[in-house]
């Protein structure tokens, strides 16, 4: 496993960005997440791994309250962002989601021009004071999404006309454009080919400088390549949470070991 890693591990674990305590999620009668406690650090890539249906995506969606949009979903427990309870009545989920950006499994560019895709977030949150201001924001986001060079000559063309990998980087740029503090990624590479995946992974590593990134992935290699911290979920439980190299070289729990050696999942 070690030889696959290209990221240095000497990250300075500064402050904790998100603290989750005793989080439980119910879908109707199904108990999807059971008493999960986790601390997510700033300027770090945290990977959630685990077999399908283990609740890793569900837990991710708790962090920006996307589960609110599902009628039958009920979340209990405490999730704090910078010490502030995000489920508190005083928190507007709309503003929370501007703070905690999200990238989805399937690239979902809006059927608008590339420019409008990026400008969407800044526009609805009033981040740009003028047209030139907005132009700058769009360019900066596209550069950070590592797609500027490919699209700079066709900003007025529809975003849906890009290739799958480009679309996903466009979506990452779109999420970055609203200046979030945290970026949630729900299996961002599962619809992409290996080359596009490599590009997105490289991008994730870049993003770590400015953001706290949480990524859900099916691929253990991907977790090993991009993350510094890894959480292993199994049947709704957080089984193990540790530094990525610890999880992959010296797992403490027998279930984690079985999973990373391919015996379960």
């Amino acid at each position, binding site marked *: 496993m070690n030889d696959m890693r290209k990221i240095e591990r000497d990250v300075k674990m500064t402050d904790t960005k998100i603290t989750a305590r005793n989080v439980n999620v119910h879908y109707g009668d199904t108990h999807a997440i059971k008493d999960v406690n986790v601390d997510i650090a700033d300027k770090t890539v945290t990977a959630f791994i685990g077999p399908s249906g283990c609740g890793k995506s569900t837990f991710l969606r708790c962090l*920006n309250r*996307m589960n609110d*949009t599902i*009628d039958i979903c009920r979340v209990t427990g405490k999730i704090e962002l910078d010490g502030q309870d995000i489920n508190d009545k005083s928190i507007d989920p*709309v*503003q*929370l*989601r*501007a*703070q905690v*950006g*999200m*990238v*989805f499994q*399937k690239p*979902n*560019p*809006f*059927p*608008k021009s590339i420019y409008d895709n990026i400008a*969407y*977030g800044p526009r*609805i*949150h009033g981040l740009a004071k003028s047209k030139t201001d907005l132009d700058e924001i769009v360019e900066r986001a596209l550069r950070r999404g590592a797609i500027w060079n490919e699209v700079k000559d066709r900003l007025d063309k*529809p975003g*849906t006309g890009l290739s799958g990998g480009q679309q996903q980087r466009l*979506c990452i740029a*779109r*999420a970055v454009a*609203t200046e979030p503090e945290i970026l949630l990624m729900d299996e961002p590479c599962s619809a992409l080919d290996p080359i596009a995946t490599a590009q997105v992974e490289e991008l994730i590593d870049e993003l770590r400088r400015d953001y706290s990134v949480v990524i859900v992935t099916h691929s253990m290699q991907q977790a090993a390549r991009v993350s510094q911290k890894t959480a292993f979920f199994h049947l709704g439980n957080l089984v193990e949470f540790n530094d990525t190299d610890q999880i992959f070289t010296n797992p403490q729990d027998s279930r984690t070991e079985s999973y990373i050696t391919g015996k379960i999942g």
Partner: protein
Amino acid sequence: MTTLAFILLIIAVIVGYAINRVAARSIREGGNKLHSLTTYHGLFSALLILVPVLTFILLWLVLQGSVMDRMVMNGLQDGVLDGLDSGSTQLVLAEIKSISRGQIFGTPEDWKIAAADQYVAIQGRSAWLLVIAVALMALGLMAFARSRVSAQFRARQGVEGIVTGLMIFCSTVAIFTTIGIVVSLTYETFRFFDAVPVTEFLFGTNWEPQIPLRADQIAAEGAFGWLPVFLGTLVITFIALIVAVPVGLFSAIYLNEFAPKKLRSVIKPMLEILAGVPTIVYGFFAILVVAPALRSLGQSIGLDVAPNTALAAGSVMGIMLIPFISSFADDALSAVPYTLREGALGLGATRAEMMTNVLFPAALPGIVGGVLLAVSRAIGETMIVVMAAGLMAKMTINPLDSVTTVTVQIVTLLIGDTSFDNPKTLAAFTLGMMLFLVTLLINIFALRIVRKYREAYD
């Protein structure tokens, strides 16, 4: 006898199927590998018999009447039809036919009775001829189909070819019917323009079509300017859309995005029931409830409101159109992928922002489709307008005045005492033609708009 022909056809189809299937099976049992399943061999024979013979029978039934008429009329003695115009000749033929059915009025001439006897004889012969022809055709086709059965014969492709042909036919029936309607309308329209100048019709502002049918009738001189009538249609359609489009769209948006599931499951079917209410019921509502209410409301604020108003008819028509627009818009919004909703929400958009900036533009083609359907219904709607808007053609856009529409005028022109070479009657066809052209133009125009502004999501 026709029944016998049909029975023969059915038997032939079944027998043909069985023969080919058995033949194919015996080839397979003889150790050869068949290209097609035995069922396809059977179906090939059945379809090969069914389609041509059925077509033949139907054509025969359609054409035999005119052929027999011609035979009888040609068989009459020379000279008896001299000096009769085409109408009187038709009367003679009708009399001969009624004699042949045993309905004799007065004492017909001997040559008519003779012709009636001949007619009966021809009828009998025709029926037998049909049966014999059907039997021969079916046998011939059956033998041909049987002769094709072999291990290599591609029966499946044969069947698929015939079925494809049938599907092409079915899909073009509606198109050809429409073309037929347009052609007949065009013909009558040109006849109308022989009597009334095109410019008078298109640009005239006076519509008084009640012209005399016979020389001794007292009636108006007649004026055929369609503008007031068309203006009435426009006014009522406009009022209906002002009611229906916002209400329909907002109800669709509410049902699609904001309504709780339970409420949605109650409201949506109820809206769809609204679409099934007969328009005459809406007409009652317009004339008994809405029109008097408008009138008393108008009086209380000092407005002079006519008993029949464009506003009453248009607003009730708008209510009628709400379910069309809302259910089309709801379907279009539901068809937008869920990932786009999540994408917008994930960026911190409110549900309203998501709706106006993302879902609505993506669903635009479907929504415009619903509005277009509503426009066509509004332009073509007759009953509510007859009951609630009035019959007088007035050059006005005042919604509180009585107006009339193109469809209402078509109805009034075609009911009662009419003759088909009179400009009054022909005017109805011309109005129909104009209605057709107007809706066609609206459709083309709207499609172009949609193509320009739509945001295709896949």
